[in-house]
């Protein structure tokens, strides 16, 4: 466990425990405590990573491997956006307001645990905590759809945990240790790998199910669509990415896919990634609900990350890490905006919406920025990560995959164009007449995240240096 980042786990936990007592009779205090905790953490992290002296030194002073610091920042950033949004979004009479904030803080603590751990079993423990908090968060508003999504998530994620445990037993038997370093050293040596790759493959399969990669994607759209509106941003933006995709990238680097000792596994992973890209994009084309389309788009974007992780060359890993971070930014904006739409217009059905640009300009334009970033339009951040992934594929001689990835990137643009036309642009619909723009505090997180997207795109050279440093540290 990375000791330097332990405080980012303990402080949210502490404040989660304090909230039910302190805010017992003053529900507003719960909002305040949760926001202050996450804001303080984020400011602290920014100081660690973005001090002028650190930037000037090419990020050589970053503690640990840099990967966990980046992801803890993403967790705090998304967490802060969600709690800030919730503070103005939650119904005054919601009976479990304190428990809601406590659960978000516990899930932030668990995600910090996931990204800072250095041991497979501890990874499993924190991922279970994360899963348990997600079910309760999804069902916050007592709706039938939320319950349905939560139950489907429940019955897919726990069999996957059993597979992970079986993989851990095989590793314990054949490797004698469960730490990441032991696996890395083992794969770098030339001892015949034997059942070690089999154990790693079982663990990988569990995480593929948890990440919602095709063919195990059936729970994702239901959970995202049914979830309580701000929670779907939390879930799609960061929770499922940390609980599944992070571990896939980590395992890909530990197994050293680039030197070909686990060739078969790498090939399967890349194939599943490509399949996710295709199925997600094609299914998104025919959706009529805004949130459900975003969910399928999320499956497709996860496909890009898994494809890059499966390739495993340093350039591909850089692309995967960068895309993971970008995905957190743009999906949070889109899901928060869908929550705004739901609050203002009362629906997320694309047939009923239309011309929202006239009445909700801020929501509309932040969405457009996020959509273009997802589709990979320069100079937004999504363009650079997709470029890195496609370049890495081309460089490794996988020209078919590179061309397909490029093609489906255009399909992404197509379905988002379609959605923009239906929801935001065009003639003013009845829904647009009667729905005013949401209040400024509800817009603030989306605007902040859009600013991050534009800034990451424009300041790409700095971010490239950072990601390059991370890739060098975790692959060597």
């Amino acid at each position: 466990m990375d000791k330097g980042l332990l405080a980012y786990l303990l402080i949210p936990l502490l404040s989660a425990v304090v909230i039910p007592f302190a805010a017992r009779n003053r529900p507003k205090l719960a909002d305040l405590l949760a926001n202050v905790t996450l804001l303080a953490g984020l400011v602290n992290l920014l100081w660690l990573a973005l001090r002028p002296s650190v930037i000037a030194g090419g990020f050589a002073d970053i503690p640990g491997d840099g990967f966990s610091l980046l992801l803890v920042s993403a967790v705090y950033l998304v967490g802060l956006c969600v709690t800030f949004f919730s503070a103005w979004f939650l119904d005054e009479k919601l009976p479990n307001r304190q428990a809601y904030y406590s659960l978000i803080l516990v899930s932030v603590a668990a995600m910090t645990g996931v990204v800072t751990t250095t041991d497979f079993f501890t990874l499993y423990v924190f991922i279970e905590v994360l899963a348990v908090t997600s079910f309760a968060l999804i069902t916050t508003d007592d709706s039938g759809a939320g319950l349905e999504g939560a139950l489907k998530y429940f019955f897919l994620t726990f069999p996957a945990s059993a597979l992970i445990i079986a993989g851990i037993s095989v590793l314990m038997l054949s490797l004698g240790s469960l730490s990441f370093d032991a696996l890395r050293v083992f794969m770098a040596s030339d001892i015949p790998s034997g059942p070690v790759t089999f154990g790693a493959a079982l663990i990988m399969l569990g995480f593929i199910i948890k990440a919602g990669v095709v063919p195990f994607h059936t729970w994702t759209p239901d959970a995202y669509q049914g979830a309580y509106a701000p929670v779907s941003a939390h879930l799609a933006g960061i929770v499922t990415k940390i609980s599944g995709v992070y571990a896939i990238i980590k395992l890909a680097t530990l197994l050293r896919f680039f030197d070909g000792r686990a060739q078969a596994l790498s090939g399967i992973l890349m194939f599943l990634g490509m399949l996710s890209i295709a199925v997600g994009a094609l299914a998104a084309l025919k959706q009529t609900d805004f949130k459900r389309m975003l969910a399928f788009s999320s499956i497709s974007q996860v496909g890009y990350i898994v494809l890059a992780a499966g390739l495993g060359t340093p350039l591909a890993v850089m692309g995967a890490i960068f895309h993971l971070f970008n995905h957190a930014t743009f999906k949070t904006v889109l899901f928060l905006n869908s929550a705004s739409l739901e609050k203002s217009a009362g629906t997320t059905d694309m047939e009923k919406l239309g011309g929202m640009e006239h009445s909700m300009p801020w929501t509309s334009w932040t969405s457009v920025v996020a959509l273009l970033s997802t589709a990979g339009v320069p100079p937004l951040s999504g363009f650079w990560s997709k470029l890195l992934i496609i370049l890495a594929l081309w460089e490794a001689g996988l020209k078919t995959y590179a061309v397909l990835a490029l093609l489906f990137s255009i399909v992404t643009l197509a379905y988002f164009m379609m959605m923009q036309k239906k929801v935001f642009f065009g003639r003013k619909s009845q829904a647009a007449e009667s729905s005013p723009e949401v209040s400024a505090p509800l817009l603030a997180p989306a605007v902040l995240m859009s600013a991050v997207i534009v800034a990451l795109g424009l300041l790409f050279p700095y971010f490239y240096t950072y990601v390059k440093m991370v890739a060098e540290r975790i692959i060597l």
Partner: protein
Amino acid sequence: MSVFAFDWYMIALLLFAGFYCMLASRSIVRQLIGLEIVSKAAMLTVISAGALTANLVFAQALLITMIVIEVVVVAAGLALLVKNFRVKGSADIWKLDSLKG
């Protein structure tokens, strides 16, 4: 066939029964029971691997954590079940089809 291979063969049978239950049943309670059987099988693999490599102390340390996790997971699952029952008046997972697309 060694004792270890026999153990894991039986564990595979347990896993099969658990997954079969989860696939065949429409009732949430029964699905939870299938899940429990699957997780029992997973626990057996840990202890059996520990016994084979003379690493039982370590394996038991893992198992105690797993049991704590399992209790909370089952409690969360049953809480969802009871809530679902209160909201919809059924414990049938295939009645969950309001979301489609």
